């Protein structure tokens, strides 16, 4: 049994304590491949490289079997709210 979306979700939930998490399986059957969007307090004060490293470290075990991991969003809750707001403004105009 390889790595599933559920396993990735469970690991990130327990290690990153996210306020928002979305894991999308993009493998299409050819091997484990995921896109991740994650919002966590733990990213506060961290640069993008550090944030991605934190996610990679949390998934260190799973990464051995994951072929591709795309971290599309790694935001703090404040940035997440801000982004939602600006998106709302864009779609409203």
């Amino acid at each position: 049994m390889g790595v599933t979306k559920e396993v990735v979700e469970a690991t990130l939930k327990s290690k990153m304590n996210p306020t928002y998490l979305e894991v999308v399986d993009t493998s299409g059957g050819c091997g484990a491949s995921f896109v991740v969007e994650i919002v966590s307090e733990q990213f506060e004060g961290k640069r993008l490289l550090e944030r991605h490293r934190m996610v990679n470290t949390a998934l260190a075990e799973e990464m051995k079997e994951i072929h591709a991991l795309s971290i599309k969003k790694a935001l703090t809750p404040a940035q997440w709210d801000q982004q939602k707001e600006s998106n709302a403004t864009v779609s409203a105009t």
Partner: protein
Amino acid sequence: SLRCFSALTPGLKTTIDKVVTADKVVLFMKGTKDFPQCGFSNTVVSILRSLNVPFETHNILENELLRQALKEYSNWPTFPQLYIDGEFFGGCDITVESYKSGELQEVLEKAMCS
């Protein structure tokens, strides 16, 4: 800490040190800049091309030992891996995100002038 096996021997580390400082912008990727063999690598090549910076690419598919050693060297599990001014900058997602925010252009400008 004790390790049973490490691909990053002192010799390889010295070699990688030299390779990442030989050019201002170095990309370790799947394939070459003229023939990328993975969408993620292709994305980073396209971004660097659009910014009009000179860069060197190295094909990690041709050297399994280098591939494993680089993962330890950068403490980064996947490819492509972009180095600017001898320092690890990030993978595909970080490159795309910082290209959009303008941070990549800033870092590259600084590197080109140093």
